[in-house]
């Protein structure tokens, strides 16, 4: 019985939240990867694009709620998502047209592009805060829990409860669906194959009659879809706060690089590596060990390796270790 309690406790506080967080990071890292593969630069503005898309989704959610449209047990934000995605696509294509295209035509170096994207990041962040304000906003509504801890306890008779939030299930399902769509697009459609060809050998792609402007536009559209989805899912799971997204940039980049920059499968793997590391290293294992330990022995401390304040330091440390030991990442990607 104690053993089962330990497992349920672990699932409730580590496995489920880390998997959800991993799915959010994976979607964000996929967006970084798509832009890196096609435009060959590290897009620092990606997390602000997430914020922008999530904000527009939130505005639309409020509008829908005000006219009395709800998605039943699901969060209303899911209905509002298409509007957020369209707005993010518009934003991405506007920056491409007004900012990045200029540097693209000059064949600027990737470091120039990265610095330019930092500028775009600040503009987007300012615009977002200007429009919605810096405060915290609640995005989720509808039925909050799929399984409540109390119900779980009653059903199983265990001391520990397992709570699964609706948003957690939605996050994981949406991440799987989106990753599936991305791979289908890249490997089965003409445009997707043209994107891979362009990323493989730009000159030969031009000789084959592939239009670079079109490929770049598709890359931005994919990045905007991924960004809005991951931003909204993050907001639903926790809450929407504009400042969070600048902090999210580090774990997202760490995911993309740890997995192997430019490799979509790597981005997904990296997202989960970072998420599990963060949660596993900051979780306090006292109760968990108490259940497993024989007799009534209790550990004295919290058995927490790192305070949760150091959450972001973990992705940073993993990033540094990977860059030192295996700079190409888990799946051999390109060097940044």
């Amino acid at each position: 019985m104690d053993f089962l309690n330990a497992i349920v406790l672990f699932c409730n506080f580590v496995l489920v939240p880390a998997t959800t967080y991993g799915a959010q990071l994976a979607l964000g890292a996929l967006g970084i990867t798509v832009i890196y593969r096609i435009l060959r630069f590290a897009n620092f503005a990606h997390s602000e694009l997430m914020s922008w898309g999530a904000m527009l989704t939130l505005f639309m959610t409020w509008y829908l709620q005000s006219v009395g449209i709800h998605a039943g047990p699901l969060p209303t934000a899911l209905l509002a998502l298409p509007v957020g995605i369209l707005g993010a696509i518009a934003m991405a294509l506007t920056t491409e047209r007004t900012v990045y295209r200029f540097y693209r035509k000059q064949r600027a170096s990737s470091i120039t592009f990265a610095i330019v994207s930092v500028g775009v990041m600040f503009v987007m962040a300012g615009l977002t805060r200007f429009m919605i304000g810096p405060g915290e906003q609640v995005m989720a509504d509808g039925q909050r829990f799929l399984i409540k801890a109390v119900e779980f306890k009653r059903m199983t008779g265990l001391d520990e409860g397992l709570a699964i939030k609706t948003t957690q299930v939605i996050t994981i399902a949406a991440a799987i669906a989106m990753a599936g769509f991305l791979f289908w697009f890249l490997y089965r459609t003409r445009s997707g194959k043209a994107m891979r060809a362009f990323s493989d050998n730009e000159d030969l792609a031009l000789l084959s009659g592939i239009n670079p402007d079109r490929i770049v536009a598709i890359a931005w559209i994919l990045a905007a879809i991924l960004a809005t989805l991951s931003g909204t899912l993050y907001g639903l799971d926790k809450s929407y706060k504009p400042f969070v997204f600048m902090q999210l940039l580090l774990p997202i980049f760490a995911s993309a690089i740890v997995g192997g920059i430019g490799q979509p499968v790597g981005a997904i793997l990296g997202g989960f590596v970072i998420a599990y590391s963060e949660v596993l290293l900051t979780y306090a294992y006292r109760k968990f060990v108490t259940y497993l330990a024989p007799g009534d022995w209790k550990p004295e401390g919290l058995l927490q390796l790192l305070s949760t304040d150091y959450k972001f330091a973990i992705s940073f440390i993993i990033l540094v270790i990977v860059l030192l030991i295996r700079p190409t990442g888990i799946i051999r990607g390109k060097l940044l």
Partner: protein
Amino acid sequence: MSFLDATGMSGGYGTGPDIIHDCDLTVEAGEIAVVVGPNGAGKSTAMKGIFGMIHLREGKILFNDRDITALPPSDRVLEGMAFVPQNNNVFPSMSVEENLEMGAFIRTDNISSTITQVFELFPILKDKRKQMAGELSGGQRQQVAIGRALMTEPRLLMLDEPTAGVAPIVMQDLFKRIQDITASGVAVLMVEQNARQALAIADRGFVLVQGKNRFTDQGKGLLANPEVQRSFLGG
């Protein structure tokens, strides 16, 4: 009027000095024309000039009685030209079949019969069609590169040193395939380092030196020319 008539080409890279000076190259329909010459003679540059990949300061290119001098490369592909660069001429992380599909990117009709033809010409590619092009040997990769170019069903195939870096026995095989391609009615213009073997299969040969035409004759004529032998074929 020749099938391809490039006359008086002068130009170089960017704003740099001219690499080729008043260079002429012609190809008749269904024949093999070979451009040979020492390193740095401007052979590849002349090819790029014909395909519109560099800006020609002077010169005129007539293809199939049409003036294509001002067209960008992608439009020249539509006119029926195809170009196989010397390096980086495949999509390495894509399968052989996907490479061929990308070659036919500008086509909107059904490409399966052309893929079949390419597989008939290069049977090894059919066996390896699911394999990444980057994992193939040098000779096989050249076959993928030529196959990719053939996917638009061109009437003029331009090859920049197709046998660079492949084993001699593979080179013989590639030349044989190039003759097969010509037999199917496609004209071939190629730049070659292996001058003797290339001229042996050429209907027409050009010797370029320092960006200028030095000798122009039938392939056999150049092989028999004592001066060409002494200077460029190693005696």
